[in-house]
């Protein structure tokens, strides 16, 4: 039972789940597919754990299936880490999907596409040749497109999201393919090991072209700033378990691509490459968090926060490249560990957030924050899960977000005084970007949690919300539990990431960061004791509760109306809404966001001075989309109109076009020959 065959059986089970999803009757369809998906995830995860533990790769080559090149899969420790990441998000999302299927994802196509999506994502990190990688990459893109378009018939927004997603993903895929083809052209074979051997001998400007193409391609899949436009649209329209998988796992595969091409195939590179990645990361982090803080749609808010977290990962990746380029391999390894830890943690808490948002959408019928409110009382478990996940994305201490931010801050801090001018300028700006992003993320998620779950319900939907079925809560609960475990005991996460990094940057000799209970920086002063910190916090909370109980004489507490300056009627409309909550932050960043404000006042017929009603609407648009993408779309549409005149509709005209083309070529052949 070689490990390779485990991978194959896993893939087969996944495909079987796909067929089961299509064939089984509606009621048991989700459950059957779920069981098979879990089996597939379990098999792939065991292989991945074996690879991480032993350190040497698992290879599998078959001539069949793909013509000419055949399939070859090699699971390196780096790939194994990402397979684990996908499995960690897929299992809870599928559990959530069982309950969710009764509401939204019940069509036959969705139930069969979802398992294929999970299986393909489990295989992408194992792909070891250009052909296998591109086939799996395209399959992943197409299946996820099908899942985004699940309810295109009901909502026009889903259709436009689908087109945006399709176009941008395939522009990215084209860039990736070109990069791989250039690499393959310079090496005899098309397996990644051949590419890696010959990549070093390539001309520097060609290597730069390959790196930039890969950065564009994988950056668009990861959702880095100029290419992030599809992310908020696609995630908002996709069903929740799918957007949890897309935001947690698929985006991470974009980062896997950058690391694969940048560090593994090209083996690092000149410093300016990684400064570009660092700047791209900082821009994505700032832009994403700014828009997350100013967005009222819960899923779009989460999608922008994905761009923000991916920005942080790219920031760490860029820093790691810069440190490697200026000859500090140990620091390079540390910031790569930070990048992958942030990515893994992001997959966990973002998955949990999307699942709980799905539960909110199922229970309250809407995901617009201005219509929610008071859900923590009506949906206690889902509300509590959302709050814990929101706390961990804000990087609050006992949870997993904090460990990632601490590692990134330490790597930037220790990289600050290396005497390299570019580094010395880039690092403080990176820290500033990291800090502002942290601040804005707190703003975004206090708004999301506070307006969404606390206070009075702002719509009848929110009023009538009740708790969702057990499987949905269990799915989200599984992810939140893993967030807490990864926060309190991060040794498991950091050591496995360390093993993957040691495989990617072998010569750095980066010994494991884990010292017993706490994380000790290797060769640098800096340590963190997350378990003791969590223990101290629990002891302190227990002590504080005891203090309050002991010191207060009157145990009974009285329930009374909230104090509204003695006003008689305290209604939900008196509360802050998401727009008003974000208004101070939006006003501070006014010139960056440039929101569209329109105020229309309708006066009483008799006199202009008496106002009948006034409506104020403020919308924050995505400036990158407006300035970069819309002009391109308008130009394409104009050329399209012009080209229409070529199509009068007469069959003869078209045939004559064909004939003239043939004649012209023959004339050319005759003349040239």
């Amino acid at each position, binding site marked *: 039972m070689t490990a390779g065959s485990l991978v194959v059986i896993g893939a087969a089970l996944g495909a079987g789940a796909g067929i089961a999803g299509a064939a089984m009757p509606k009621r048991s369809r989700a459950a059957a597919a779920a069981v098979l998906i879990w089996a597939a995830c379990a098999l792939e995860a065991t292989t991945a754990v074996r690879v991480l533990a032993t350190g040497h790769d698992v290879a599998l080559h078959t001539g069949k299936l793909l013509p000419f090149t055949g399939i070859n899969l090699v699971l390196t420790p780096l790939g194994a880490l990402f397979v684990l990441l996908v499995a960690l998000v897929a299992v809870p999302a599928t559990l959530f999907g069982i309950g969710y299927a009764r509401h939204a994802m019940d069509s036959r196509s969705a139930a069969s596409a979802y398992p294929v999506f999970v299986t393909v994502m489990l295989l992408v990190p194992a792909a070891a040749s250009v052909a296998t990688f591109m086939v799996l990459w395209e399959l992943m893109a197409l299946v996820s497109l099908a899942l985004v378009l699940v309810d295109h018939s009901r909502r026009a927004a889903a259709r436009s999201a689908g087109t945006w997603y399709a176009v941008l993903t395939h522009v990215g895929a084209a860039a990736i393919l070109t990069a791989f083809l250039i690499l393959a052209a310079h090496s005899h074979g098309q397996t990644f090991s051949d590419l890696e051997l010959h990549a070093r001998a390539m001309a520097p400007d060609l290597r730069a072209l390959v790196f930039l193409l890969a950065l564009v391609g994988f950056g668009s899949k990861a959702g880095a700033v100029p290419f992030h436009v599809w992310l908020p649209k696609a995630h908002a329209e996709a069903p929740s378990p799918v957007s949890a998988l897309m935001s947690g796992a698929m985006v991470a595969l974009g980062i896997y691509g950058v690391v694969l091409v940048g560090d593994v195939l090209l083996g690092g590179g000149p410093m300016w490459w990684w400064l570009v990645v660092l700047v791209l990361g900082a821009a994505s982090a700032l832009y994403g968090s700014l828009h997350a803080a100013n967005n009222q749609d819960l899923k779009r808010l989460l999608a922008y926060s994905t761009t923000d977290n991916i920005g942080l990962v790219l920031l760490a990746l860029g820093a790691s490249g810069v440190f490697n380029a200026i000859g500090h391999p140990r620091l390079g390894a540390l910031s790569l560990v930070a990048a992958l830890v942030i990515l893994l943690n992001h997959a966990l808490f973002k998955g949990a957030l999307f699942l709980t948002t799905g539960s909110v959408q199922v229970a309250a019928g809407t995901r617009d924050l201005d219509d929610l409110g008071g859900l923590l009382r009506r949906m206690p478990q889902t509300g509590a899960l959302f709050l814990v996940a929101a706390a961990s994305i804000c990087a609050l201490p006992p949870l997993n977000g904090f460990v990632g931010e601490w590692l990134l801050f330490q790597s930037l801090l220790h990289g600050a005084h290396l005497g390299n001018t570019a580094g010395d300028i880039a690092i403080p700006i990176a820290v500033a970007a990291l800090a502002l992003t942290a601040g804005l993320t707190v703003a975004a998620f206090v708004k999301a949690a506070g307006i969404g779950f606390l206070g009075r319900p702002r719509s009848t939907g929110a009023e009538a919300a009740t708790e969702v079925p057990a499987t949905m809560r269990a799915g989200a609960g599984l992810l939140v539990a893993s967030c807490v475990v990864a926060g309190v005991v991060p040794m498991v996460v950091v050591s496995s990431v360390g093993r993957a990094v040691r495989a990617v940057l072998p010569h750095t000799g980066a010994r494991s960061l884990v010292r017993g209970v706490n994380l000790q920086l290797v060769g640098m002063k800096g340590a963190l004791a997350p378990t003791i910190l969590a223990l101290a916090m629990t002891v302190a909370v227990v002590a504080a509760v005891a203090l309050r109980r002991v010191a207060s004489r009157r145990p009974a507490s009285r329930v009374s109306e909230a104090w509204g300056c003695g006003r008689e009627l305290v209604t939900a409309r008196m509360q802050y809404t998401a727009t008003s909550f974000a208004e101070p932050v939006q006003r501070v960043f006014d010139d960056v966001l440039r929101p569209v404000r329109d105020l229309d006042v309708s006066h009483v017929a008799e006199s202009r001075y008496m106002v009948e009603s006034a409506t104020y609407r403020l919308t924050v648009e995505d400036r990158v989309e407006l300035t970069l993408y819309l002009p391109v779309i308008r130009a394409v549409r104009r050329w399209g109109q012009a080209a229409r005149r070529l*199509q*009068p*509709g007469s*069959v*003869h005209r078209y*045939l004559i076009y*064909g004939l003239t083309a043939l004649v012209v070529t023959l*004339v050319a052949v*005759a003349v040239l*020959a």
Partner: protein
Amino acid sequence: MTSSTYASLLGLGAAVVLLCAVMTLWRRSVGAIVKVLAVQGVALAGVALSIGIDHHDATLAVVAVLVLAAKGVVVPTLITRVVRHDPASRETQPLVNVPASLVAAGALIFLAFAASRSVTALAPTATGRLIPYGVAAMLVGFFALATRRKAVSQIVGILLVDNGIALVAFLATAGVPLIVELGASLDVLLAVVVLQVLATQMRLRLGSLDLDQLSELRD
């Protein structure tokens, strides 16, 4: 079979194929055109047979018989069945009047010979020298396809192009492997069936097989 008779037989077959292609431009009524198509099919089969015999290649002989059956007999009968149902499609008013199309056919033939000069220089064998005939037949067939109004004559145009290509295939590679030939002829059959269905539908919906009605379909 002595080489000279073989060469002349080949020449005759290729010439007949080209002549038939030109004849379709010249004759106006669809019935005649279909008969010309049948003749072309037979000629093509003849060429294939002679090559098969010369190369003692049994598969090529089988292919020749197939071509004879398909292009010589089956396809023309199918088309005549469509034509018989629809009296209106008997005479065709081509987009380009007959003398102009004949001149154009001449130019196309000249172009075909000029373009394939390098090919013939490459293979000065008996078959190689005749390749321009196949290319010319294809070009003329394409011209016929582009300038006919009636759906049926369009079908004939497509078949002419296909026969031209088949001729070039036989001449150039001394016989196309059986599978490729089977595939090609299957395509042709399929095309004919589809077009036949299309024609009947057109007649039912539009009342006539005139292609100009199609231009209303543009949005």
